[in-house]
């Protein structure tokens, strides 16, 4: 079996960890409502923090042009502005740091031949996707200058989060493949692959719907479980026009969709985990299935407790655990790359002959 490149694999895993860190920073910035506070984008020099009173006045002045400032914080002081500014600033600097951690080792590994041309091109594509993600994030922040837009709009936030997750999953898969280039054959486990594909797809879609819940602040309504204020389908499910608008902007609809799909995802994922744990698997994939089941259980409970308590802080942990759950599903799927159908019994072979 071809040995993997542990160092390159470790570097890519560190990048995955940094994307997770970005979710921590971005989720926190959203939780405290800091998304619109920095209305400048200087991709290169933006890592320099404001130093003089003049810098601060300029930045604060830019924020004062947003509808959010005018409608929600007209009496905000510079001190209050700074407490919102720093988390958002840190989140952006973290993004620039990621770019450096991506490009510098990539260049070195490519030059010394530890990264093949093919892999380098693939990684450059992922890097470009990361750059596009940053630009998309900036345009989302700019929507704050539009009249009446008081927080990052759902139609921007959900794609921003979901594309981050796609980049994360692609990078994680690449890291795992670099560490273990040849797939170990596992007889009789091939049937698990479509199950895990379904899990990953469902988890991603549920996460996208979760981003809509966060963006519409739907956590403030229907703080009951299992019903939504006594009804299984909430009142006002289709109160907006046109109908399609309900699915991204109606708090009742968005929360209902997330609950429904999360339950479906939970059932499919638990079934997958049970099927995996009842199959004879090597220790690596087996532990991935255990982690999948455990994180899924934790995720559902966190979701329930979040909505009952209406606590944005718990919602933040719910968001972070979703990334861990996705990680477990991707690792489980990757560990089964080499899975084959059950070997034929000798009687079947005889019959076939």
């Amino acid at each position, binding site marked *: 079996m071809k040995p993997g490149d542990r160092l390159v694999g470790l570097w890519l895993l560190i990048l995955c960890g940094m994307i997770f860190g970005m979710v921590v920073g971005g989720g926190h910035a959203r939780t405290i409502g800091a998304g619109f506070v920095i209305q400048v984008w200087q991709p290169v020099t933006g890592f320099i923090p404001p130093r003089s009173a003049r810098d601060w006045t300029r930045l604060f002045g830019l924020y004062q042009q947003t509808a959010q400032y005018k409608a929600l914080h007209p009496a905000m002081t510079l001190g209050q502005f700074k407490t919102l500014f720093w988390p958002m600033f840190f989140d952006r600097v973290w993004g620039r740091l990621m770019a450096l951690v991506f490009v510098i080792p990539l260049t070195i590994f490519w030059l010394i031949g530890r990264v093949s041309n093919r892999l380098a091109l693939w990684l450059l594509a992922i890097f470009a996707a990361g750059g596009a993600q940053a630009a998309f994030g900036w345009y989302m922040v700019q929507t704050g200058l539009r009249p009446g837009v008081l927080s990052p709009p759902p139609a921007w936030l959900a794609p921003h989060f979901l594309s981050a997750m796609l980049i994360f999953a692609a990078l994680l898969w690449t890291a795992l493949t670099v560490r273990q280039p040849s797939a170990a054959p596992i007889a009789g486990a091939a049937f698990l692959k479509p199950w895990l594909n379904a899990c990953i797809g469902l988890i991603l879609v549920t996460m996208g719907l979760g981003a809509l819940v966060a963006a519409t602040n739907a956590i403030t309504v229907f*703080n*009951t*479980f*299992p*019903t939504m204020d006594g009804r299984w389908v909430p009142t006002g499910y289709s109160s907006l026009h046109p109908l399609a608008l309900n699915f991204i902007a109606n708090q009742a609809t968005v929360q209902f969709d997330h609950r429904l799909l999360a339950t479906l995802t939970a059932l499919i994922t*638990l079934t997958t985990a*049970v099927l995996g*744990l*009842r199959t004879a698997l090597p*220790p690596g994939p*087996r*532990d991935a299935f*255990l982690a999948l*089941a*455990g994180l899924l*259980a934790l995720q*559902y*409970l966190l979701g*329930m*407790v979040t909505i*009952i*308590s*209406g606590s944005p802080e718990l919602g933040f942990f719910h968001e972070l655990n979703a990334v861990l759950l996705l990680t477990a599903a991707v690792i489980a799927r990757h560990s089964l790359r080499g899975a084959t159908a059950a070997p034929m019994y000798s009687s079947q072979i005889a019959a076939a002959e």
Partner: protein
Amino acid sequence: MSQAILNAIGTAASTRNRRTVSLWLFAVCFMIWVMVGIGGYTRDTGSGLSIMNWDPIIGALPPLTAAGWNHIFGLYQQIPQYKILHQGMDLAGFKALFWPEYIHRLWGRLIGLVFFVPLVLFALTGKIEARLLPWLGLLFILGGLQGAIGWFMVASGFDPNSVAVEPWRLTLHFSFAMFLYVATLWTALTVRDPVATRLPGQLGLRRWVAGAVILLAITMVAGTFVSGTHAIDVFNPATKAGMGMPPPNYFALQPWWLNMFANKPAVLFDHQLLGTATALTVLVAAVMALRGSAPKPVRDAALVIAALVLLQYILGITALASKLLDVGVAHQMNAVLLLTAFVVMLHQLRGAAR
């Protein structure tokens, strides 16, 4: 299992007879499980005090005439629960209270019959090993005792100013039911599968599973106090009361130990803390079994306990948040399923060795 041992046990131990006898005992277990549901429903609807008399035999008949109904409604009108909670209730309202309690008692009599009649038949036809007869006879007598405990519990609800039974008597009634259930289930499993398979290297797992089941039992007992004191009333999302944090008035009552049984916020908190500890212990047990070299049936039992403990935790939170009585009953019935999975798993691990 050598053939010599089988011969020594005699014809009663034929595989077919053992299957028949164990099937009968499993049916009794199932009936006890249903009884837990009916009992939970009776408690949640506050029907437990609607029948004022205890006639183990003739009580099997409900009132058949208008005079009969008026008679027992008249009896009910004399107790404090009627005077305090249901003053002015009509006969239809009374019947809604009457039927759950009546069905609960009737089902108890039915369990007695389903236990006793086959027991006699199997004993006469030699289908049961002789050494098992005294044990099964004892279980039958204890089942009768459970009926008496039920009446002992109900009687406490007729005390002056009382609108419900005393919580500790409810705990006794439920705990004794669980003892009977586990005893019957273990007997059924052993009759079906009399010889323990030796499982080297599984001793650690068995000890952990035994620890988890003890925690589960304590949590279930604590749950009966939640139910008996209606501690769920404490829950209030607006003040975060009853949401898993230690309550500020945990030691409101004197002496201190009384808080564990009668102080609602403390009772609820204890059950939540124990529930979380049990859930974590159960998950560790499941992970141990699934990562170790346990045989296939033990692994499957581990998957079942993990799934049931997750469901139990979700049902617990849901019961609290929704205050839906049906969810509370489901939580209680699922606790018995979880206990069942544990007993099955421990039974499979009987032969665990170092």
